[in-house]
């Protein structure tokens, strides 16, 4: 996955929000990370530490992660189940007509700043 690319996208968004709100220092950024988003948290944390040092606005900003569990919906029996545990096949009725309803988000939730 593109942990460094993701960090750059986050920094770009925070800088835009910073300009819109006249922020000078960001103390933390909260990222909602889906369980099956494919992002490796440890790598993200390393890339974050490296990249923010090069900015004025974010140089001391902490990256806070809010995990979002992965949930799959079965169209055949209208139920939801844990994606990671059961995969694509519905554990209740055995159908393959399933899709992910949450769990691949990489959302910038909020910024704490002044």
């Amino acid at each position, binding site marked *: 996955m593109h942990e460094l690319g993701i960090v750059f996208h986050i920094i770009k968004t925070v800088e835009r929000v910073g300009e819109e*709100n006249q*922020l000078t*220092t960001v103390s933390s950024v909260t990222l909602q990370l889906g369980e099956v988003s494919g992002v490796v948290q440890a790598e993200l944390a390393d890339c974050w530490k490296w990249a923010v040092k090069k900015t004025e606005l974010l140089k001391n900003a902490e990256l806070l992660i809010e995990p979002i569990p992965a949930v799959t919906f079965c169209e055949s029996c209208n139920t939801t189940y844990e994606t990671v545990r059961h995969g694509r096949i519905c554990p209740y009725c055995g159908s393959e007509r399933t899709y992910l309803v949450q769990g691949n988000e*990489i959302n910038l*939730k909020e910024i704490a700043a002044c």
Partner: protein
Amino acid sequence: MDRIRIIEVKESIFADNNREADRIRAELKRQKTFLLNLMSSPGSGKTTLLMRTIEALKDELRIGVMEADIDSSVDAEKIAATGVRSIQLHTGGMCHLDAGMTEQGLKELGTEDLDLVVLENVGNLVCPAEFDTGAVKNAMILSVPEGHDKPLKYPLIFTVCDVLLINKIDVLPYFDFDLDKVREYAHMRNPKLKIFPVSAKTGEGMGAWTDWLRQQVGEWNHSES
């Protein structure tokens, strides 16, 4: 010490890219230019297929090509030899293109006088699928030697594409590649995926593909919505 406040953002980190991609599409609509994003693994035949496609359509459509690679201008040179305007984008190590890079490429290519632009994305089945380039349609190539299980192993790219070209059907007798299975697996991921078995080498099946492309370009360039 200033008071710290919480500012809600609540958007996907891809939101900026998606907005930019929408802007690119709106501009292309205004210019009546159709952008096709062509993806696949390395070696599946993107450039050869593209050259064949250009041969078939260049007398009716004004075509431009953007080649994306990590390095070298091998592909752009091959395309330029067909007489079609092409530019080479070097990603400098990035494994995919995003809307920003695509926009830069389009500006450099110059698209006002073109009907069809093909973006030959970096050879990769994983990353390009995640980034909207601003293209009108996404096409991918899976070649026979790669195997018919790829839709099971790389779901995202099969999901985001409108067209799947199964290339190198001329070598079907030498590989354990099951055309029915690949259709079944691909449609499991994306029931609306249009599938064209072709051989860019012999030309077999290319007619159906170029007919589809011609029709799509016509619809985009000549409809109001």
